């Protein structure tokens, strides 16, 4: 099939008087890791929840494999192959790691034994293989982020939406999990990620969209967008790009 896997056209979301997302358009190519970055409050997470179906669009469309998803609820989007993770991890705290992941695996495997076996395989893939029978509530922050990833992966998604999976991790934990994400993509899963950790965005993403005040202000490869004056201004304020440029000229 041709065309992008996901295409968002003129997406807007209004909460009362606040226009959180204002006519944002972007596409995610099959087999890519696409990043969505932007300053705090830019509307990244809102845009994300629109794609996942947790909120409904005020205007615009979200098309997956060429079909308009309309007001399709999240569980049906998951069946179609779109699964999200949560920025604030949401483990099933009373269950073990294995049982947590099995809930995801049940989407495509009705039999309990099969789902549990799938859960074990996925846990090994994300590095939770030795913690299968631990209660999820006993995991560290890094462990919970991996669990979040594993559960989503167990649904066998076509498009994985990662909402700041690296936030709250220390640099060595980030280094550990970056190759895991790359392996997931190499396994054939397309990834759209909202991320603040620029080190990871730079090394992982093929293409980046920058969102500021609800609008897409720039797009391109990670290197291109970090050089874009509009992006620098969005992060550091009006006139920042010019000041930085003049300082560099002064330094020679």
């Amino acid at each position: 099939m041709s065309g992008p896997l996901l295409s968002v056209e003129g997406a807007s979301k209004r909460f009362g008087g606040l226009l959180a997302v204002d006519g944002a358009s972007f596409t995610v190519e099959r087999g890519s890791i696409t990043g969505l970055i932007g300053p705090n409050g830019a509307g990244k997470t809102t845009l994300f929840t629109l794609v996942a179906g947790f909120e409904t669009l005020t205007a615009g469309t979200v098309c997956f494999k060429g079909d308009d998803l309309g007001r399709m609820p999240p569980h049906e989007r998951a069946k179609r192959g779109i699964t999200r993770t949560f920025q604030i991890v949401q483990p099933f705290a009373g269950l073990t790691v294995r049982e947590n992941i099995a809930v995801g695996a049940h989407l495509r495997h009705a039999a309990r034994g099969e789902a549990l076996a799938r859960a074990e395989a996925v846990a090994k893939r994300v590095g939770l293989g030795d913690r299968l029978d631990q209660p999820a509530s006993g995991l560290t922050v890094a462990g919970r982020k991996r669990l979040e990833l594993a559960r989503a992966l167990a649904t066998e998604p076509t498009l994985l939406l990662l909402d700041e999976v690296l936030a709250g991790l220390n640099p060595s934990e980030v280094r550990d999990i970056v190759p895991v994400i790359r392996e997931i993509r190499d396994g054939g899963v397309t990834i759209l990620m909202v991320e603040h950790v620029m080190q990871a965005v730079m090394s992982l993403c093929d293409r980046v969209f920058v969102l500021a005040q609800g609008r897409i202000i720039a797009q391109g490869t990670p290197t291109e967008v970090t050089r874009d004056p509009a992006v620098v201004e969005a992060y550091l304020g009006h006139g920042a790009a010019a000041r930085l440029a003049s300082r560099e000229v002064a330094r020679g």
Partner: protein
Amino acid sequence: MSRSGPVAAYGPILAVALLLAMLPVATSANTILNSMVMALLIALAGQGWNILGGYGGQFSFGHAVFFGTGAYVTALLQARFGVNAYVAFAAGIAAGAMVGTILGYLSFRSGLRGSYFALVTLAFAEVFRILANATAFTGGAAGTLVKLDVRPENFQFSSRAVFFWIALGLVTAVMLGVRFMERSRFGAWLVAVRENEDAARALGVDTLKVKIQAITLSAGVTAAAGGFYVQYFLFIDANLAYGTWISIEALLVPIVGGLGTVFGPLIGAVALHGLAEATKAIAGRIPGIDLALYGSLLVLAIAFAPNGLQGLMAKIGRGLSFGRAP
């Protein structure tokens, strides 16, 4: 537990059932059998509540609405239309389950959770109680009598032992069914809804559908307790059928016994009824003393044994084995 074989999963249930089935052989004292039948009846009502509350995390405060519907349909079909008792009993279960579906659809579709859901169920039970009390068809405040005609084909038996075995059979069947549920996809999804609804939705769980299915099952089981009550006492009125007493008992026994466990409701019912009988024997006839005791027990259970008696026993067991470890 979910990975163990069928023997480990279902064996203990059958063993407990067989052991309990010996009771009428050991004693023929009517007071003991009577008390045990009541304990099993409450256990059955509690098993129903446990499916929705214990496994699904949706705390109902009005399971009387299902108990009462099961009871009234069983009684009225016999008394008004001369329907066979077993057919009436089955119809009572179906009617209770249907009320569950409707109540579930109305409240879950509007996103009611937690105390709001509890209040709505309480309100439903009260409305049904007032209606049953005021309508001529249900016999109004005088209630409805089922004609005494002690024959097995009428679901009426002269021996309390037979009622005991029937009640035990129902409780056992539900325990087996709940164990089966625990080991199924539906069970996994239901527990996921209890633990975190948003996460469940993200993983492809149709949470509305799962909750409606759970309340339907839950209501059917509690309605069976209501139908059995009618066959045992051959009488029902609005306060017995839709009164808060049964709503409270139905939620109390799983909480005390062990929320979201197969044996919880049975353990809780036997423990509470044993205790209530003992209190009555010691404290004599102070009205409401058993209820006051129930209240304090609930507080103690929630404060010190949030996993119920079953969890408490497991904790003590683990403590002992840790003690022995080098």
